[in-house]
Each structure stands twice: as structure tokens, then as C-alpha cells.
């Protein structure tokens, strides 16, 4: 069933940034992550796809320890993931995360959302933090919304602010947990375009998504998960045109034909 192989070699040369080794996790009786081995190189864009309940979101959340793991190891930039406390907070500052439900701080303006981490975690000067926040908001195309509250923005705008908020920390790697799943169809592209640009700029990205178009165009590698396992890893062209596992063939046949 497990056919892990391929593609690791062609990117590993630039250095390993995130390494998961035989990671296991249970939710009660459910074995959500089963012996996950995954290595993400610096600058690589990895898209994780798979059916609902396959464990892809959980996988994404273990990488900054929003979910704990039962066994195995996760290292980021050579350092094992700390348990709790200051070291973990420091690590999280280096790992940007974008959520399905945006999770912008509801009581703060868009600008304050992007400044908070810089000021409170990075100890940046308010002025510099604001300048950087405005630049990032401009980069994701919502500069004109800086003084509004999150609830006044559309979903697509909120998600772009969330990306800016994560980028403000100068993360080594960005995690995207189904960033477009809560969006109206017409807003999906504005978020994907920002992510495409980010990928082109060389950001290391782990993206859990159902957007096959994004996987095709932006990913260096596609990781296909089902039932808590990594079933297949391949470059996008090969995965979409010629999947090897039956599970992946079945999955693709269900989503690509309508």
C-alpha cells in the first residue's frame, strides 16, 4: 500500500528544512497519522492532497505543534520540535501558519493584526512594524483595508491579511491548512495568486488543499494521503497524468471529471 519514493532526490540538494520521521498520532481509537516520513527541502513547495479524514490537516498542524504527536520525530531547520514553553513559542514564530477559517484577531484592525507578532514576539519598533505591515498588506493587495476590522472584509481579503500576518514574522516555512476551503468560489483565485507569487519568490511552503490547479502549477511535489498514510509522492505532472497507486487513481477519477 505504501509507495513512498521518487522526487526526494531532485530537491534535497538545497538542504532539508522540515523532516518528519515515523510520526504517529491517534485521536482516541483513530490512528490519524501512521508512520509518516516526509522531508521538505528549503524553497520547496509541497502540496498535500487526499480525501477528507485522511489526516492531511492534522499532519500540517503537527509541524508547529498545534497538534502533539504520539511517537516519531519532527525537526525544523535541524532542531527537534520543542515540547512546550519559550522554545516552542520561538519556533512557532519561524513557522508561518494560514488557517482555513482565517482566524484574524477579531478585536484588532487589519494593520494591528499584522503588527502584533512583530511587536510582541520580534520586539520590533512600532514604526518599523507598521511600515512592514503596510508593505506586506500592499503586497497581498489589501493595503486600502488596513484600518478596518476583519469582520468588515470579504473572506478572500481576510485570508490575504492572514498570509500577510504570517509573512510579517519572516517565517522559514509557511503552512497552509486548506486556505481556500472556506472561501466563495470567486475569491479563491485572489488567494491562490498570492500563494503562487510566494512560491515563485522561493518561500518553503506546505500546502494542504483541494485546489488541483494550484498543485499542478505551483508545487514541486505532490504528497497524496489516505487513511493516515502517505500513499504516493510525485512531481505534479507525473502524479496527475500517471498516478501509480489505485487509491490515488480512484481519488483523481472522482475529482477531475467535473
Amino acid at each position, binding site marked *: 500500500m505504501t509507495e513512498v519514493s521518487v522526487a526526494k532526490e531532485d530537491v534535497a540538494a538545497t538542504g532539508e528544512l522540515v523532516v518528519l520521521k515515523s510520526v504517529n498520532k491517534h485521536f482516541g481509537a483513530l490512528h490519524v497519522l501512521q508512520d509518516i516520513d516526509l522531508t521538505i527541502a528549503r524553497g520547496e513547495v509541497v502540496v498535500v492532497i487526499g480525501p477528507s479524514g485522511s489526516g492531511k490537516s492534522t499532519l500540517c498542524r503537527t509541524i508547529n505543534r498545534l497538534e502533539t504527536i504520539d511517537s516519531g520525530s519532527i525537526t525544523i531547520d535541524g532542531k527537534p520540535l520543542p515540547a512546550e514553553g519559550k522554545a516552542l513559542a520561538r519556533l512557532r*514564530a519561524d513557522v508561518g501558519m494560514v488557517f482555513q477559517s482565517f482566524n484574524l484577531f*477579531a478585536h484588532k484592525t487589519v494593520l494591528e493584526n499584522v503588527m502584533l507578532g512583530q511587536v510582541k514576539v520580534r520586539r520590533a519598533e512600532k514604526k518599523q512594524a507598521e511600515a512592514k505591515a503596510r508593505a506586506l498588506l500592499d503586497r497581498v493587495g489589501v493595503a486600502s483595508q488596513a484600518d478596518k476590522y476583519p469582520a468588515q472584509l470579504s473572506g478572500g481579503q481576510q485570508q490575504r491579511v*492572514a498570509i500577510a500576518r504570517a509573512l510579517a514574522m519572516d517565517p522559514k516555512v509557511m503552512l497552509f491548512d486548506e486556505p481556500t476551503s472556506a472561501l466563495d468560489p470567486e475569491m479563491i483565485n485572489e488567494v491562490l495568486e498570492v500563494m503562487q507569487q510566494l512560491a515563485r519568490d522561493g518561500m518553503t511552503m506546505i500546502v494542504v488543499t483541494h485546489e488541483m490547479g494550484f498543485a499542478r502549477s505551483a508545487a514541486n511535489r505532490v504528497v497524496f494521503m489516505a487513511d493516515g498514510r502517505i500513499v504516493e509522492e510525485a512531481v505534479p505532472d507525473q502524479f496527475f497524468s500517471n498516478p501509480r497507486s489505485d487509491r490515488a487513481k480512484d481519488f483523481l477519477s472522482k475529482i477531475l471529471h467535473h
Partner: protein
Amino acid sequence: MFDFLEDYDVLGAFWVTVQLTVYSAIGSLIWGTLLAAMRVSPVPLMRGFGTAYVNVVRNIPLTIIILFTSLGLFQTLGIKLGSEDFTVINFRLAVLGLIAYTSAFVCEALRSGINTVPVGQAEAARAIGLNFRQVLTLVVLPQAFRSVVGPLANVLIALTKNTTVAAAIGVAEAAFLMKEMIENEAQVILIAAIFAFGFVCLTLPTGLILGWVGKKVAVKR
């Protein structure tokens, strides 16, 4: 009809009531917030302490707590709270007792407010590298407070009326004076009505103003 009032300092007595209320409100807001923080903290010992404190204190009648501050803390243990003047000591003991009692209710109001903050807010805060204290003070509590202004107004109104219990240890607040006047004067119903009116004057604006504030600061999601 109101001539007899000239012999009594009604406003002075209500001023003591206001002072009791304000000091106790500030104290119980601080201590209640700390208790709420303990109740949601990841440290089991703190959670246990917070839970035990709330469940013990809120189930003891306030009169017993206030009497204990006088009989237990002051007369038995000799705790004078930094004063030699009986009036001052009793006032401070009453404030201490009111804080101890009211903070349990502040804690629970606040904790229900914390529960209204979506879990994603705290996750996003942790994800940018904020520590537990920062997550609580910068993201969760500010939103929690905004959603419990109404319930906190209830606690504050209850506190204002509860200050009358301080009369039990001789603090010369409004109810203390009322008892004295009822003993000395014939217009019993009039006296009671005056004091009732006085309390409504204190609590009604509290409720109205905080109700308005609550709407104003509500977090839109």
C-alpha cells in the same frame, strides 16, 4: 416631613457605600481575572486552585466571609491591614471580604466569556509565537471581556448592594445608618424608601451605562 434628616449624614453614608463598591470592584476585577487565568491555564495545580477557590468561596454566605475577616483575621490573627484606627481597619477588612467573595463571580463571568472566543483565535495567536500569557492578555481576554460586559454589570450591581453586609462589622455605610435611623425615628417606611432610592440611584446608571458600553465594544465576527 424631611426635617429629621438634618440630624443624619445620609450622603456621607452613601459615600462610604460608593467607596466600598469602587475599591471592591477594582480588587475583584483584578483577582477575578487572575482566577480565570488560573482556571484556563495548562498547569494542573493552578487549575485546581482556581476551581477549588471559586467553588468554596461562592458557596459561603457573604455575611460569614465578612464576619470572618473581623473575627478571624483581625481579632484572632491580629491582622490590621496597616492601620490602628478601628474605622479604617473595619473598612479595609470589609473590602477584603467583598473582593474575596465577588472575585469568584467575576472569574466565572469571565470564564464564560473566554468560552465565547473561538479556539482558532488562540491557535492563530500561538502560531505567530505568542506565549501563554500573551495569548491570554493580548488576544483571548480582550475579546472575553467585551463579551461579558453585561454579566459583569450584574456582578457590579450585586456588589453595590452586597456592601450593606459590611454593616455587620460596623462599617458606617448606608445600611448601617439606616438601621440607626430606624431605631431613633418614627418615619420607618420613609427612611427605608429613601435608602432604597439611594441604592437605585447608584445601580440603575451602572446597568444602563455598562449595557451601552457592552454593545459599543462587542466584537464583530
